[in-house]
């Protein structure tokens, strides 16, 4: 249970076409991440799947059933919101129990399920507290608890970690991934953070201006971005793009090379180090190369270069990405 198919799904708000038409198949048990910049329509797409927004045209099928006109409650999906959206006047126990109570389950069964969920999420000691008395991470766990007790066909996550601090984000990211391993339920996860997308997803859907730019596994997108947008969006630091004569040498309008695929030492490009960021594990250099532009280069932690130093660089030839005038990848 838990495959979701979108066929030509459209959404317009008045004259604004937020989603001009999307086809997408999500397989059972997959961890799918919708990623894209702010305003690309990823949250809207999730809300269309949830049923919180009506679609303007198209069909949404959940487990083969047409769910287009079903209200959110009838779709068998659970959602975790960015703001957690916990019920502030209810204890943690009542928050987690709420969907079960709405489903009319026996109180003894509810108690058992809540206890199980609390155990999985390390919330057993907090069941009688109110959301206001919990930390951000604990609140997020309650929101997840409220979702898992329903045993839904799929989980929908709407930027669930963006209100947490960096350290907590990393650990919650791992917890959600582990949860997916344990439950093996379909999860759809929306984020603008490509690191979250890369680390968690089985399948990434890159969205831009309401359109799907590319669908694929994290490494597929990293190795073979379909266009300039995906190439620039996936990977951190961002891929270097070079146009003009240097690109023409490779028979392309634009060439792209990731910072980690530029070798320091010997090579055709000579430039001056503008900025050197020594992180210990890595060193990020901004190098001004005449005729090529400013390149970001990722070197080892022990690279001893500083501002003003001259350096020679070489792109790894097999890691060079070529794009045509329309910004599409060339084979």
């Amino acid at each position, binding site marked *: 249970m838990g495959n979701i198919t979108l066929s030509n799904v459209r959404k317009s708000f008045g004259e604004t076409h937020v989603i001009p038409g999307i086809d997408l198949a999500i397989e059972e048990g997959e961890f799918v991440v919708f990623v894209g910049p702010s305003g690309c329509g990823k949250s809207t797409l999730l809300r269309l799947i*949830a049923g*919180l927004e009506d679609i303007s045209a198209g069909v949404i099928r959940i487990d083969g059933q047409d769910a287009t006109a079903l*209200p*959110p*409650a009838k779709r068998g*999906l*659970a*959602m975790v*919101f*960015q*703001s957690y*959206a*916990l*019920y*502030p*006047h209810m204890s943690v126990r009542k928050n987690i129990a*709420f*969907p079960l109570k*709405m*489903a009319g389950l026996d109180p003894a069964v509810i108690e058992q399920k809540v206890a199980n969920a609390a155990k999985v999420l390390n919330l057993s000691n907090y069941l009688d507290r109110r959301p206001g008395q919990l930390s951000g991470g604990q609140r997020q766990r309650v929101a997840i608890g*409220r979702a898992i007790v*329903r045993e839904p066909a799929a989980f929908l996550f709407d930027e669930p970690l963006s209100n947490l601090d960096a350290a907590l984000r990393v650990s919650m990211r791992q917890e959600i991934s582990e949860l997916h391993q344990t439950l093996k339920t379909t999860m759809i996860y929306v984020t603008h953070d490509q690191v979250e997308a890369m680390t968690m997803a089985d399948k990434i859907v890159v969205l831009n201006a309401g359109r799907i730019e590319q669908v694929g596994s994290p490494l597929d997108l990293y190795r073979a971005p379909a266009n300039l947008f995906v190439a620039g969006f996936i990977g951190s630091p961002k891929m270097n793009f070079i146009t003009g004569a240097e690109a023409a040498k490779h028979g392309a309008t634009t060439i792209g090379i990731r910072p980690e695929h530029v070798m320091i030492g010997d090579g055709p490009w000579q430039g001056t180090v503008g900025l050197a960021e020594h992180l210990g594990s890595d060193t990020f250099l901004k190098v001004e190369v005449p005729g090529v532009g400013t390149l970001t280069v990722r070197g080892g932690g022990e690279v001893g270069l500083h501002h003003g130093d001259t350096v020679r660089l070489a792109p790894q030839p097999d890691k060079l990405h070529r794009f045509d005038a329309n910004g599409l990848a060339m084979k």
Partner: protein
Amino acid sequence: MSRKTTQTRRTVVTIAAWSIGFLIFFPILWTILMSFKSEGDAIKAPLAMLTSPWSLESYHEVQERSNYALHFWNSVVLSVGSTIAALIIAVPAAWSMAFVPGKRTKDLLMWMLSTKMMPAVGVLVPMYLLFRDFGLLDSRAGLVAVLTLINLPIVVWMLYTYFKEIPGEILEAARMDGASLRAEILYVLTPMAVPGIASTMLLNIILAWNEAFWTLQLTTSKAAPLTQFIASYSSPEGLFYAKLSAASTMAIAPILILGWFSQKQLVRGLTFGAVK
């Protein structure tokens, strides 16, 4: 630059705050003090007045001359009645404006508020004529209607700001959790809205209790609330300070007590939902 909160600074601020508080409260305090003096002592110079003997004479006279119980009861009926009526209209109105706003919702709210900017006396004559022709002069029903209408904009505004504070995502979460509309209202919306409704109710009771323009213009005796009771002691034949003070004290005492016990709710109400 962080603000230094030294001991001296804190002391100065505390003294200043208490002084301002005392200054605001002083007229009320003076009224209460004066109410315990005889009519002759009340008009003496402040120091002489304070040292003169205390007496309950004014209270006795006020009790004999007027029917405090009737006015008190009228005040209760008018303030509570108009508050309930205003809430019955304002809760659904604010609800729909907060959760299903239209294109003109903001304009509508501003228009409602604009009616509060007009001086009440501007419509005194038409109102008086309406009341006269419909036989509503000196009737509780008529005054409840007027008090409801004059406070309605504020009630709608307050409730609107409270309802706006309820995050839409929580309602969506309830919908995802399988709550029907009834369950959503019963288990999620109402418990979250009750504090806002309660403080709106309190503030409106106080506003209606203290309303003195329409209650003085449109009542004489039968429906007259405590404002009329106070006013009856400032007569053209001369001022009876002690009795006026005794009447005022009796009129403000109930609302002062109500206000004291509901301070927390009121402060929240007065900040109009600006502070979470």
